[in-house]
């Protein structure tokens, strides 16, 4: 379907598609097998100027919004969600600085992130604080001219491969929702180390690591914005980044549908290609419908967010739930259409199904998203 992209948006799609076809797809099976962080591909993405899509022109970026990132991620997601997540997580790590950082802080970090010279990561989750972000226990204490961080973050995407980390830590537990603040920690900071790379079900190319802060000392000016703004900035950050994750789902779903249709046309059983059987056709039809519907919702949500509305949470959550649940269904159905071949690592769909699962979990589980939507509905109808 024609979504009436501008010339520049079409350029973004064309470049991202070329990178996906020429670089990501040929390497994805090996990256998944070896659990290798896709440095070379991220370099190619950087050289194509796509790392700075959402960064203002003053800092060397393209000055685009959520929709531009969605367009790029949809293509990368079609290639490999592991690679695409590495790109998306860097944007996630950069957003807090863009939203709340001072001019000086933005000037310090944004140009390098825009050129891909430095990669970012977002450190929120802890062993006891997933959906319940308020349960975080990492602390930050002001000691003279330095903040001292103590605690452990868990399952941080790009952990160990990024250079710039935005970390949320408790600065005053008594203040409740205003008790946390955001800090920038750099990979070479003293007292900052990582755990081993986690072994995962899917997105195996993506790096997931524990971050350990043991009397980690950072200069005072590493505070992002003001003390106490932590949770608020985190929520805004996630609102902005969710359509990107949703878009990964759309790209992934498209890839799975493509494989399923091509296979169904070729596979002959009972003297016919299986696409001739209604059971298969209906599966494919439902996959296509779900995919196109979620694409439309993701695009609409992204454009809505780019119009800077007062409330973006509901749109952001809706598109995330819709596209990621759909991606799980479509990839599972794709494996079903390919039958035994779909289960074999020789064919790409089993990886797609494994990769889909995380989309329903990270950046806020789909259950939490439904809470958000429910609460928003409640607020709307007074």
């Amino acid at each position, binding site marked *: 379907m024609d979504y009436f992209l501008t010339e520049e948006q079409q350029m973004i799609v064309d470049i991202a598609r070329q990178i996906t076809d020429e670089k990501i797809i040929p390497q994805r099976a090996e990256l998944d097998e070896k659990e290798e962080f896709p440095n070379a591909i991220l370099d190619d993405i950087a050289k194509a100027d796509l790392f700075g899509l959402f960064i203002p022109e003053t800092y060397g970026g393209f000055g685009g919004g959520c929709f531009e990132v969605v367009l790029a991620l949809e293509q990368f997601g079609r290639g490999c969600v592991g690679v695409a997540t590495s790109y998306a997580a860097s944007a996630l790590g950069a957003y807090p600085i863009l939203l709340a950082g001072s001019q000086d802080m933005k000037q310090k970090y944004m140009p390098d992130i825009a050129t891909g010279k430095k990669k970012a990561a977002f450190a929120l989750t802890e062993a006891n604080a997933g959906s319940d972000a308020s349960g975080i226990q990492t602390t930050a204490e002001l000691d003279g001219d330095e903040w001292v961080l103590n605690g452990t973050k868990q399952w941080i995407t790009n952990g160990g491969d990024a250079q710039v980390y935005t970390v949320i830590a408790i600065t005053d537990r008594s203040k409740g929702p205003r008790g946390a603040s955001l800090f920038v920690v750099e990979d070479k900071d003293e007292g900052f180390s990582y755990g081993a790379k986690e072994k995962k079900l899917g997105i195996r190319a993506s790096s997931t690591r524990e971050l350990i802060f043991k009397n980690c000392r950072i200069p005072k000016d590493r505070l992002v914005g003001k003390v106490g703004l932590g949770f608020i900035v985190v929520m805004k950050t996630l609102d902005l980044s969710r359509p990107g994750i949703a878009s990964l789902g759309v790209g992934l779903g498209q890839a799975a549908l493509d494989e399923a249709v091509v296979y169904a046309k*070729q*596979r002959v059983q009972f003297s016919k290609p299986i696409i001739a059987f209604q059971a298969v056709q209906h599966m494919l039809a439902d996959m296509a419908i779900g995919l196109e519907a979620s694409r439309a919702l993701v695009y609409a949500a992204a454009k809505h967010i780019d119009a800077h509305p007062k409330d973006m949470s509901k749109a952001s959550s809706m598109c995330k739930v819709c596209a990621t649940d759909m991606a799980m269904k479509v990839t599972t159905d794709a494996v079903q259409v390919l039958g035994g*071949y779909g289960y074999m690592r*020789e064919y790409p769909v089993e990886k797609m199904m494994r990769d889909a699962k995380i989309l329903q979990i990270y950046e806020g589980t789909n259950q939490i998203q439904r809470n958000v939507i429910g609460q928003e509905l409640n607020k709307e109808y007074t």
Partner: protein
Amino acid sequence: MLRIDIETCIGCGVCEEVCTFGAIEVVDGVAVVNEKCTLCGSCVDSCEAGALSIEGKDKAVQADLAEWSGIMIYAEYRHGKVAPVSFELLGIGRELADQQKVPLSAVLLGAGLGDAAKDLIFYGADIVYQVDDPVLEYFTDEIYGNILEDIIREQKPEVVLAGATAIGRSFIPLVATSLATGLTADCTQLVIRPEDGVLLQTRPAFGGNIMATIECPHTRPQMATVRPRVMKPAPHDPGRKGELIDYRPKAERMQSRVKVLRNVLEEQDQVNITEGDIIVAGGRGLDDKKGFELMRQLAEAVGGAVGASRAAVDAEWIPYPHQVGQTGKTVNPKLYIACGISGAIQHVVGMQSSETIVAINKDPHAPIFDVATYGVVGDLYEIVPKLIEKIKEKRG
């Protein structure tokens, strides 16, 4: 320029049907030409109303056309040997020379030629022009080009043929441009038109999806390069007699601005099977690693690369770069010969767009026969050796 006389044009649309390139169509009752036109003239020939003509088609014919007579071939010589394509050129050269009733000559350039010229005579050359000089040890476009150009200007052959090898394709265009004459590359067929003695040069275009026949009517010589292993080599007759001429080029013609420092030989380990026109692939049906020795022999006989099914690679009979299929390479050669391969979909998906597929398998129900152009049910260890023998015979 294609001229359309709009008064005469009746808008019948025959030209539109005949045009191979979609360059002419009838709009509002009159033919209109667009930029896809290659001026091939098919529409002009087909127009019954006589409304079409190609402007300026009568161009100047080279003044001394009639003086150009004889067939000349460039015999490539490298690393102490005459390249096999030279004997193939003598083969087709002999046919053309006999048809035109003219002599067949060969140009041989190199350092330390020894008896090579004699060999060319045994293979059919009536005259050999040879230049034996240390400066010719390494190939340089300028020196080789200068010498060949000078010999051609002196001897005025009507046709000059060379092999479409790295050397031929590099310097023959230089010679053609210096002589202000036409050159057709990679010809697969060369035939003389009896009416006027013009050489009709047929070659593939668009990666072989289309064939084109080309002529060079107004200038001489008519030059063509020929792909190796396309023409039949001439027969060898050690009793043949011919003339050997030691040609002496002028000193200033033996200069080259480009310098070759040295040559490095490389193992032609054909592991990039995605290039190339022919693949011979082996599968589980080979039963043994030794089966790939047979595959290599067949590949060599047909001038192709060796491929394999996943089963063969998993059994470690041949390394992974040779694997064709879902988790290997996708290939689409002109000819794919599958030996002892069952044809499971994981393999077929990697080779099904090959132009011609030959399957040799013991099992008459093997699915490979569903995609094969030619199927041979039988024991590949009986069939393939005989196949190799017959192919070698055919090639001479």
